[in-house]
């Protein structure tokens, strides 16, 4: 039965894909090849849509593949499959952490983990920045285009939300205004 199969395929993806939504792509490509549920070209469309709509990208991908394969029930089942391993694994780890919260050893490990985790988030931010704010390649391999209007937008949002009264605004307001600026000025 296809729904059961969808659930298990996505539970497998959820269990073996470690990291952000991009980590699920190799698993999905493999799934498409094995099952013929969708082609590589379909997958490319799904990635593009998942990136440009609200929601965590990995979840969007699961929903999209599930929908393509078996309609709305497929979308729901594939997404539930994706999150089931997370729920089980994280609840076990969270329970363990709660039990050992007072432990000096756990505390010492987290003392090292926290700056590393912060650095990984910074690194992800830098990756987005280099992907969006500059284009490497284009006309020839050695051209390097800096998108000044976008850099201006990034800096403007950053200054507004850190140093002005606008910092009280919800982040989604900045996202909405930036989308509007992007659409109007054809960034």
């Amino acid at each position, binding site marked *: 039965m296809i729904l059961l199969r969808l659930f298990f395929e996505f539970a497998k993806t*959820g269990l073996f894909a*470690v*990291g*952000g*939504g*991009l*980590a699920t792509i190799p698993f999905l490509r493999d799934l498409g090849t094995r099952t013929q549920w969708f082609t590589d070209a379909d997958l490319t*469309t799904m990635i593009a*849509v998942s990136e*440009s*709509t*609200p929601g*965590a*990208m*990995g*979840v*969007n991908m699961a*929903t999209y593949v599930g*929908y393509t394969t078996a309609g709305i029930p497929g*979308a729901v089942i594939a997404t539930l499959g994706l*999150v089931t391993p*997370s*729920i089980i*694994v*994280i*609840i076990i*780890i*969270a*329970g363990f952490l709660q039990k050992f919260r007072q432990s*000096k050893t756990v*505390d*010492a490990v*987290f003392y*090292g*983990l*926290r*700056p*590393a*985790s*912060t*650095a*990984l*988030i*910074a*690194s992800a*931010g830098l*990756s*987005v920045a280099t992907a*969006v704010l500059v284009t490497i390649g284009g006309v020839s391999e050695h051209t390097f285009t800096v998108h000044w209007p*976008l*850099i201006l*937008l990034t800096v403007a*949002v950053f200054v507004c939300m850190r140093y002005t009264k606008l910092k009280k605004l919800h*982040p*989604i307001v900045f*996202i909405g205004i*930036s*989308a509007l600026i*992007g659409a109007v000025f*054809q960034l």
Partner: protein
Amino acid sequence: MNTYFDLFFTFAKIGACTFGGGYAMLPILQREVVEKKGWATDEELTDYYAIGQCTPGIIAVNTATFIGYKYKGYLGGVLATLGVVFPSIVIITLIATFLTNFADIPVVRHALTGVNACVVALIASSVIKLGKSTVKDAVTVAIFLVVLGLAFFAGLSPAILIVCAGVVGYVTRRLLKLGKEAEGK
């Protein structure tokens, strides 16, 4: 308001406000979960991201489960997770039904470029907020810089870096007795 409903609804809102991967979710989480609801602290968020990056599953889902579980046990973990995926199911189903060429529409592409530029600023601001509580002495500054360099320029796997940083934390804090709290004893 019923706390379980609140948990589901808050995470649905977080899911609907996220553009990109789990990292783009961080600024929204800080606003909703840390500042508005007080369900977690900035330090706890960095802990959840650290663990979420080296355990099975995608970061956004892992973090939601963590916060939900901490606040309201098993049911909380499940509801927060269902909440964060709920908008995806609705929005993607609608787009897949009516607008398969959604990502090719010029106005969508331009708007998305604007959103991405904004997300860079949001992540930068979040990192500064987190850094205030996680990068506070010579050891943590060193870990931050080394991990940033290895992740961004050398492309090393986050899971490996997290495990190594944990070991460094253990060694400096427990064996060499460096770092803030150790001095206090």
